[in-house]
């Protein structure tokens, strides 16, 4: 093997290791968000598909740096994002390596299949219309880290995508990925990329390793719009006829092409930034009232911006957030608080910090302390204090604001007293209440979140003892 070819192989491996490393880092950060907090709050915001979804939350919620950088670099260099950053891409690369176990024939070139663009295109339009579930199922970051994928048993879509990757390589990126669709348009006119040079012998090695089936060794063509810059074809080419460099100017790269793309992009960004209330609201509101994560503000807002990636569910230190099991289309898989599982920790703002789309706004601790997710409902008839006349008070014990406190009764043990002005709906009372299956004290969710009254800080001078030892 020539030294040049060895260094090309090494570079292809560097690409792979970075992609696998980023995948591992992301999964670890979402498992241990407290130890890896900077990683957990940064990596989701590099995901292009999430940044596109974030556009619907308004510019203030878009990490503009990563968004603009990805657009610019894709326009210059092609779809390197898909080969390097995308976590599902890395998983599909791993999966497609399994193919070698079954068959020597790896991949074969395929012409582009434009009619398939309908699927990712429709997904994007539906997201814009407020029907976010298809996007949540197909956007690669959401699909990878969502609660129903890697962590707690894979979903059907996830399994299908992985099986497809074992069978055919990265066809998902070409046919189904909504993020890929946008990147594809940007990459079509990319300035630098791999191209065939005269020395090609037509051996077809490149076609056999191309996981997106975009290299045709016989026709000596490489589809820049699909190439994910995995560099594998470049590394296997026996005589260096595939070369990385400036792409010969084609008609498709003229000023007209550029203006077209710029206009399309502006239209897309404009559409994305259209306020929620001007976009179609097709979904009705569910009958039940879920307790939404802090910073969701309202179910309508959450539904307009949430990409169902479940990063918030994953990082919640109290395991209080779950993907809603409700079959209602406006609720299914949306992050909701299950106060039987855990409660919303008073000073914790982690979910808003990891949310990559702005569906959960970042709250300061100060503001989080008065963010009301729901209102407490006390069912005296079920409470052990009234039923059994035994002392309990677990609800008041956990209540962070004093919305539930204990007061003496004329007879029997102290009993809970509710001051719902102070209630933030954290669910701590519901979680610790010993009555099951339905707690005697519950949090009823709010479709539009409110602001609770701030507990007034009363500083009283410490009392003193009249006698040094009262015993």
């Amino acid at each position, binding site marked *: 093997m020539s030294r040049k070819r060895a260094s090309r192989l090494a570079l292809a491996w560097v690409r792979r290791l970075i992609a696998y490393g980023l995948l591992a880092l992301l999964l670890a950060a979402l498992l241990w968000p407290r130890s890896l907090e900077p990683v957990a709050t940064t990596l989701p915001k590099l995901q292009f598909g999430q940044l596109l979804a974030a556009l619907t939350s308004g510019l203030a919620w878009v990490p503009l740096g990563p968004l603009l950088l990805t657009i610019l670099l894709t326009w210059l260099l092609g779809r390197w994002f898909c080969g390097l950053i995308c976590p599902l891409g890395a998983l599909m690369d791993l999966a497609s390596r399994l193919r070698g176990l079954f068959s020597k024939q790896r991949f074969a070139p395929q012409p582009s299949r434009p009619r398939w663009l309908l699927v990712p295109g429709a997904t994007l339009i539906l997201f814009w219309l407020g029907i976010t579930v298809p996007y949540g199922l197909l956007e690669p970051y959401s699909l990878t880290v969502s609660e129903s994928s890697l962590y707690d048993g894979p979903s059907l879509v996830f399994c299908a995508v992985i099986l497809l990757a074992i069978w055919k390589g990265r066809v998902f990126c070409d046919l189904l990925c909504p993020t890929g669709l946008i990147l594809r348009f940007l990459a079509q006119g990319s300035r630098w990329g791999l191209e065939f040079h005269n020395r090609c012998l037509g051996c077809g090695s490149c076609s056999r390793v191309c996981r997106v089936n975009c290299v045709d060794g016989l026709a000596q063509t490489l589809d820049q719009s699909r190439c994910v810059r995995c560099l594998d074809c470049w590394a296997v080419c026996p005589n260096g006829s595939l070369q990385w460099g400036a792409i010969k100017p084609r008609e498709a790269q003229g000023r007209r092409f550029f203006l077209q793309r710029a206009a399309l992009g502006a239209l897309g960004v404009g559409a994305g930034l259209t306020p929620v209330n001007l976009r179609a609201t097709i979904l009705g509101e569910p009958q039940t009232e879920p307790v939404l994560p802090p910073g969701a503000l309202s179910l309508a807002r959450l539904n307009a911006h949430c990409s169902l990636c479940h990063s918030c569910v994953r990082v919640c*230190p109290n395991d209080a957030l779950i993907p809603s099991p409700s079959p209602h289309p406006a609720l299914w898989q949306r992050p909701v608080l299950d106060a039987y599982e855990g409660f919303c920790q008073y000073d914790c703002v982690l979910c808003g910090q990891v949310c990559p789309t702005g569906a959960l706004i970042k709250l300061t601790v100060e503001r989080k302390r008065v963010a009301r997710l729901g209102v407490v409902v006390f069912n005296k008839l079920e409470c052990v204090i009234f039923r059994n006349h035994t002392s309990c008070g*677990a609800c008041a014990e956990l209540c962070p604001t004093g919305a539930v406190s204990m007061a003496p009764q004329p007879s029997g043990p102290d009993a809970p007293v509710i001051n719902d002005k102070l209630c933030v709906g954290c669910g701590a009372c519901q979680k610790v209440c010993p009555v099951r299956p339905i707690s005697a004290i519950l949090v009823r969710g709010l479709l539009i979140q409110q602001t609770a009254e701030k507990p007034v800080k009363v500083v009283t001078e*410490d009392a*003193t*003892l009249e006698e040094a030892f009262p015993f």
Partner: protein
Amino acid sequence: MNRRSFLKTLSGSALALGLGAGLGPLSGGLQAQGFPDLVATKGTDLPLMFDRSLTALGGLGQYVQKGQTVLVKPNMGWAVPPEEAANTNPALLAHIVKNLLNVGAKKVYVFDNTCDNWNDAYRVSGLEKAATEAGATVAPAHSEGYFQKVEIPGAEVLKDTQFHELYLEADVILNVPVLKHHGGARMTAAMKNLMGAIYNRRPLHRFGLDETIPELCLYKKPTLNIVDAARVMLSGGPRGHSDSRYLASQMLIVSADPVATDAACARLLEAKGISPPEYIHNAAKLGLGIADLNQVKIQRLSA
């Protein structure tokens, strides 16, 4: 002759017969040597108050032998800073850990099954840092895997529970709670603090705290109870609310008898109008200790 005086006579005659040495220093021998049952020390410096109290009790070496494993069980259930007095004072905990290592304890463990998120509570209370720097091993207690189910002999209501394995394995247990008002149990001090050594607190709330808290002590009594009553939360406990009131009682109460400890603590709250919890009497009925402070040999010190 009641049971108590009978037992006293019995242990006294046992000593006289020279069998006392075999019973070890914990079985009543200390009282026979003239040490008090309970020491209450006034002061402003908790570590110094601890030293005074332990000197009065004959030294920490009376309770801990060289090479023993010690569990120090503070109250660190809440993710609130030390100044709110919802958790045990970090300086006191650190001082106790250092002293234990000085008298030759092989290993000192600290844990609490917290109410708030355990990471937050360990960190914000300042106790994890204080204990670790003093040389203790701060263990997690948030998941069921750390706990083992045991049957509680003599319990009527709480027949079994899951204790933390370190609680079961430790040779010596120092129970180091902070005295506070408690919405559910009225008061939390020595006995109530053991609810942080078990996994599932729900049955205790379900069947009544006054009945079940004493039964927790039936399984394994702490060797020594050291109550931080320097600044006592009088309302909004156990977490503390924005309008919580406090009592600057500036006291440290130390006793091997958890019932006498709680009875003394209850007097502090009673002085400010909080009626004592029923679980103290229930515990005395179970024979866990003495609730009537007139029968307890109390030494009052100031530091």
